[in-house]
């Protein structure tokens, strides 16, 4: 497992796209914190990156990488190695490489400019989001043999989670605005990892605004240490479930 993971990591780190990704993240993070006079604003600009760029790059890069690794996978399957080991190694390799890119690009400037709980939450949620979208990408890659369809599927998933889901939530809010919908809506939002990540960071930064009407419930649900644990638990589920499904599919896949 370790050996194959090692191969995967070195292979990805040789890739120019991942270097470019790291560089872009770094340039953006540094400029955000150097240009904005207050760090809260910087954190919010950075939040956009975590919620848009990081998932998009994670899902597309991982998806393509999985398709491009089909030869590698075929070679390994003919060798005396468990399929589980092969699949987990590829996933782990992707997770480590992408998170390294994220930590180098975003983690270091955040630790320098926001060395507190907020910074920590930003780094953690960013890593979670990266990993979640790698997990989804891996699942998309096993669902169809056709690379174009697989990538299309990945992009649609990303679009759904970043945009369409929130649109549906807003629609529901207006449909049921006569009912006490705060709590159900909070729960619905928590089911989308991107919304969850956003709320977790906002609770750290934009407290005053959020503490308004919905804010109280917000704080009540996510603000406690239990809420934090549940939030991270939900994110862990987003990592584990797609991966386990993909693993099960891979175990029965014909190469």
């Amino acid at each position, binding site marked *: 497992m370790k050996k194959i993971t090692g191969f995967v990591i070195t292979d990805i780190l040789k890739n120019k796209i991942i270097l470019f990704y790291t560089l872009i993240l770094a340039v953006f993070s540094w400029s955000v914190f150097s240009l904005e006079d207050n760090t809260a604003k910087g954190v919010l600009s950075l939040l956009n990156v975590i919620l848009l760029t990081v998932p998009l790059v994670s899902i597309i890069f991982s998806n393509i990488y999985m398709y491009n690794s089909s030869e590698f996978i075929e070679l390994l399957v003919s060798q005396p190695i468990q399929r589980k080991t092969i699949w987990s190694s590829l996933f782990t390799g992707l997770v480590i490489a992408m998170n390294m890119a994220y930590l180098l690009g975003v983690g270091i400037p955040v630790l320098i400019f926001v060395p507190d709980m907020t910074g920590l939450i930003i780094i953690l949620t960013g890593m979670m989001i990266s990993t979640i979208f790698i997990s989804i990408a891996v699942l998309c890659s096993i669902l169809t043999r056709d690379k174009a369809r697989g990538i299309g599927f990945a992009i649609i998933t990303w679009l759904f989670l970043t*945009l369409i889901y*929130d649109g549906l939530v807003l629609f529901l809010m207006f449909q049921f605005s006569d009912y006490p919908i705060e709590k159900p*809506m909070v729960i619905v939002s928590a089911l989308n990892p991107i919304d969850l990540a956003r709320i977790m960071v906002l609770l750290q930064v*934009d407290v005053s605004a*959020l503490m308004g*009407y*919905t804010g109280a419930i917000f704080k009540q649900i996510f603000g406690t240490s239990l809420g934090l644990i549940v939030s991270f638990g939900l994110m862990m589920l987003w990592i584990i479930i797609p991966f386990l499904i993909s693993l099960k599919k891979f175990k029965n896949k014909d190469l």
Partner: protein
Amino acid sequence: MKKYLYIVCFLVFCINKSTAKTIHVGPGKTYKSIRSALSYADNFDTIIVHHSQYKEGNIVINKRIALLGEGWPVLDGQHKYEVISIKADNVVFSGFQVQNSGFATLHDPGGIKVYDGIGVIIENNILENNFFGIYIQYGKNCIVRNNRIKAYGVEEQQIGNGIHCWKSDSLQIIGNNVQGHRDGIYFEFVTHSVIWRNISKNNIRYGLHFMFSNDDAYINNFFDQNGAGVAVMYTKNVVMYSNTFKNSKGDAAYGILLKDISDAEIIGNRFLDNTIALYLEGANRMLIKKNVFSGNGWGLKIQANCMDNVITENNFYANTFDVATNGSLVLNTFDRNYWDKYEGYDMDKNSFGDVPYHPLSLFSTIIENNPTAMLLYRSFMVSLMERTEKLIPSLTPDIFRDNQPVMKPYKL
């Protein structure tokens, strides 16, 4: 009439001056108790109380005397009595630690309570754990200065106000520090008074609360972390200069809540990190000028029933929403403010932006109608909607705008 009164006062003062005496109270002194010294004292005497614990129940001052503490003597009400009741004019009460007044909701016992006093001076006292701190009713020309008032209230119903003034006139509330009461400073039917350089912090309800109190001035006060900020209601002709309103956070928490106010000036104040910095409801003919709104959830919330208010030369930075309103009617003027969200340009270099700024965002309008939508704040979808709205305004009123936004923040 007033003139004659002053002359008489002066004459009385001159006559008595020669006979005024100083009485010492304390362990090893002639008088062991304040009560006995008070009954011995005449008008215009000075009683000096030396450091000790005095548990004498309710002490009533009904002579024109100065009661001065030395080394912070402690007057303890043992949670049963009103500690000091001032029922004479021109009393000076200074240098004491007044603590543990009785707790009752019926007759509002206070640490120090002034009944119908004129020219009473209460200064340099420490008040700890009283129901009401300093209570003035029917007072006139009284001065409350440099007192430190602290209580440990948990619930609104079980604690009184720090400085409570009722039906009074020409008061000076200066340099006091009030913490942990229900309202820090409370004014009801108090006129021609000044509140200057006070600190009001961590009070359960309002840092400052006044109603029906016309012609007052609030200058250089500091309000921090009060449950619901500052509330100003049913009042005319007030000025609020250079105050700081900070950290009022929570549902229904305001830097200042203005309700049915007219002809007020709010100038040079700082609103920092409040849920709602300035809330206007039924407020008319206000001048809101040279204030700083920074890091608030909402900078200004103007209800549609506000008219003829002028909002000018303010700085708006890092607020989640600069302005929100509940209607489409715009009867207020925004002019020459600095908005950090302004994305316009200044081609003619006259330091004003060449295109108007629309401070009302689509999302803030959505929030007004459907507060739950706050859940979607800063989501990609909302940013996308905001962008579209900025380009093609369709839902927010186009006339709600600042025609001359300044390019650089004012130095405030």
